[in-house]
């Protein structure tokens, strides 16, 4: 619990749980927003079920004075508004942790090792005239326990409720205050005192918002998508922003329409994208092939969720990987990016647009529930880090000698990428088709030409894109932890735990997973004695790709989790320990 000499904590993990509709989200959000302004590092993760009202939900917030990239297995302060919060969550509490339970809940004997405080949450808020603010009373108690200042919360409450009128603002503030006072009266003030934050300005957002922002900054001016958990926020956010930045957002009738609209918009020359989750990705497969065959850039964000089929719509998993890479009949060039953090959702979505246009191919960005909906502290974005590279677009075309001859859209070039004029360009009139075609784009099935065209398309993307992987740790580690995408945070922290134990341990992580960066991976895996492949799926999809591409038998060991929840650092650490 790393408290310092003043007894203050550098890290507190707080959680509120209750029924959907009880304001669990906003309780967490208000605490988090305020803490963000105070300069703490935060990681918020919500558990919720695929229904609208009712059903248990909780919001876990990890608060730290140092950068963090994962939730934790620990819990210091649990605020329970429903029975399930107690029964399913109390075992996460550290021995010295505190439970604040609404007084009408049953507190059973297994909880006695913890400091369980029954608080009259419902009553406190009813006293204020409205029991819906019991979550705010609970927040007030939390504020007191962590030794935070009530005044720091006023801004956020004001912002959040001002639309609903000053009465609502006042009611909420009063509820927080009454909780705070109650806590003081019951000697809870400063029981888990937080070190103060550094007051630096940082962003706090979910991956979906970061990805949408990344798209805007990369110049995306067209989105068409269909709602689906956990991707919907991307289309909703862009739906709100496109009118402001002079773009267009279209809610499509289905995912097939969405990707085809995007393909049309992209063909016409605007940067365009769609966002979806697994079921939508499956529906888009045919058109992903069309994008590959016509060499038309397209950006798809697939926010993965528990599969297969409708699966676990609100739960976490990394199981669309092979389908993103190998899905669609036939063979197409593709790029698949797996951002590692909310911050990378921003930068890599922007990157996706450059890669899609540079290589004229579909680019799939795989996020997942943890990234899409998990809220993280993010250093302010830097627009200067984003360069718009539109690849080989021809803005002017020389007239061709004859009339009625198409421009050679698929002329062979050294790079394999052919310049493309946009519709509307004089002298650039050309034809594109999903059929096999010659340099002019016209359907053709001559065997030699066919082979040449396949080679052109399949070889135009280099075997290794720069920045595909990164490595943290000593040279020649004894232990190597390998992952991709959102497991970055948990693995990084697990590595630290192992390093603290004095082990020589490295962390190799993949950011661009297709083309499969085997050269960089092999380079790092060569000397490691124990390689752990860590992924959130059942069949070991990354492991399969590694085996497929590496001629060596690395005797890698799998650490897989497919129960719908993201990894926490400690369980990775623990599982490795058990196998040493």
């Amino acid at each position, binding site marked *: 619990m790393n408290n310092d000499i003043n007894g203050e904590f550098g890290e507190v993990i707080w959680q509120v749980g209750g029924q959907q509709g009880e304001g669990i989200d906003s309780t967490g959000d208000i605490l988090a927003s305020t803490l*963000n302004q105070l300069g703490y590092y935060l990681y918020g993760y919500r558990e919720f079920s695929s229904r609208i009202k009712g059903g248990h939900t909780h919001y876990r917030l990890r608060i730290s004075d140092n950068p963090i990239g994962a939730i934790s297995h620990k819990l210091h302060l649990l605020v329970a508004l429903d029975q399930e919060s107690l029964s399913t969550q109390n075992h996460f509490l550290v021995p010295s942790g505190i439970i604040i339970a609404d007084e009408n809940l049953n507190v059973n004997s297994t909880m006695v090792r913890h400091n369980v405080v029954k608080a009259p949450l419902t009553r406190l808020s009813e006293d204020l005239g409205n029991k819906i603010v019991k979550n705010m009373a609970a927040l007030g108690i939390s504020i007191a326990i962590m030794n935070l200042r009530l005044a720091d919360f006023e801004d956020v409450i004001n912002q959040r409720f001002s639309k609903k009128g000053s009465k609502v603002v006042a009611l909420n503030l009063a509820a927080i205050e009454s909780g705070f006072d109650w806590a003081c009266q019951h000697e809870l003030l400063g029981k888990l005192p937080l070190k103060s934050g550094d007051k630096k*300005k*940082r*962003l*706090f957002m979910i991956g979906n918002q970061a990805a949408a*922002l990344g798209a*805007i*900054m990369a*110049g995306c*001016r*067209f989105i*068409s998508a269909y709602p689906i958990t956990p991707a919907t926020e991307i289309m909703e956010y862009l739906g709100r*922003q496109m*009118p*402001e*930045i*002079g*773009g*267009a957002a*279209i809610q499509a*009738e289905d995912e*097939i*329409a969405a990707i*085809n*609209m995007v*393909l*049309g*918009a992209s*063909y*016409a*020359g*605007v*940067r*365009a994208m769609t966002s979806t989750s697994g079921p939508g990705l499956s529906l888009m497969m*045919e058109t992903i092939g*069309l994008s590959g065959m016509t060499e038309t850039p397209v950006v798809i964000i697939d926010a993965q969720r528990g599969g297969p089929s409708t699966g676990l719509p609100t739960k976490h998993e990394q199981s669309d990987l092979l389908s993103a890479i190998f899905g669609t009949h036939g063979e197409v060039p593709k790029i698949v990016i797996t951002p590692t953090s909310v911050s990378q959702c921003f930068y890599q979505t922007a990157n996706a647009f450059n890669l899609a246009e540079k290589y004229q191919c579909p680019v799939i960005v795989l996020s997942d529930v943890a990234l899409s909906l998990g809220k993280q502290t993010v250093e*302010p974005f830097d*627009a*200067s880090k984003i*360069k*718009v590279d*539109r690849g080989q677009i021809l803005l002017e075309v020389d007239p061709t000698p*004859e*009339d*009625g*001859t*198409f421009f050679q859209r698929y002329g062979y070039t050294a790079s394999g990428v052919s310049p493309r004029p*946009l*519709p*509307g*360009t*004089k*002298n*650039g*009139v*050309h*034809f*594109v*088709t*999903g059929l096999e075609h010659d340099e002019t784009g016209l359907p053709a099935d001559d065997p030699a030409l066919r082979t040449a065209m396949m080679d052109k398309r399949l070889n135009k993307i280099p075997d290794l894109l720069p920045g595909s992987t990164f490595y943290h740790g000593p040279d020649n580690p004894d232990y190597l932890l390998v992952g991709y995408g959102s497991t970055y945070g948990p693995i990084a922290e697990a590595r630290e735990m192992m390093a603290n134990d004095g082990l020589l341990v490295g962390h190799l992580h993949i950011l661009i997973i297709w083309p499969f960066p085997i050269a960089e991976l092999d380079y790092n895996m060569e000397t490691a004695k124990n390689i752990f492949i860590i992924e959130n799926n059942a069949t070991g999809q990354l492991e399969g790709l590694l085996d497929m591409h590496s001629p060596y038998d690395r005797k890698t060991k799998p650490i897989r989790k497919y129960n719908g929840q993201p990894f926490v650092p400690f369980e990775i650490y623990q599982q490795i320990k058990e196998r040493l």
Partner: protein
Amino acid sequence: MIEPKIFRSGVRPNWCPGCGDFSVLNALTHSFSELDLAPHQITTVSGIGCSGRISGYLNTYGFHGVHGRALPVAQGVKLANRDLTVMAIGGDGDGLGIGLNHLIHAIRRNVDVTYIIIDNHIYGLTKGQTSPTSPTGFTSKSTPKGSLDTAVSPIQLALSAGIGFLGQAFVGNPKQMIKLIESGIKYNGFSLIIALSNCITYNKVNTLKWFRENIHDLDNDETYSPSDRKQALLSAVEHNDLVTGLIYHEEKASCQDLLPGYPNRPLVAQNLTPQQEILDNLTAAFY
């Protein structure tokens, strides 16, 4: 004015001699010419089928997509570059079988695209199966004992979905077809023109002769007013959908007119340099 023949690409159509698709190709080139368009100003998106091959025969920007998805692609093209004239063209299988949902929703959305369904009442390219517009009882390779299904009525469906511009042409009447395509292109919003056509190889029932004998031409019907949706519906029902001419026309705002914040300059012409200022404005809410 650019001559019609300039709108033909150098590619020789691989349609069967006598196929109705030739007439549609021809009508398109004349319409483009009449409208004073240049090839580079037009983008033709087409589906998969014999008819879908048409985009390769036109000297316009051509996008030959996957089966049934011409309309979403065409809407994307138009919204990306509102200065383009955007055509979508496909067969009855393409547009009324696998792709029918996109048609209804395109009508609702009203993006300014002109869609031509070349309706030969059969699946031509796959060698003659029953299509959604094949009449009940129609025998083909896929319904050797006769089709059981009620034929789909694109006219009634389009009217029910609230279409603003609807016409039906016939490959045997090129003048009318040219006029309809012209008006469709000029219409600010989604326009649908069904081109009744013959598949000389596989459809021995709905032949040119058969169409000629069964068609009721609304353009020559003085009692008909193309601004009355109810009358349009009733006349389609009455004539078993075999009406030709301008069926319905109503001015209304298009998707481009209505889209909030949608600029007058095409999206493709926007400045994309990433600006810290925009970023700061957008991220202000997240601090």
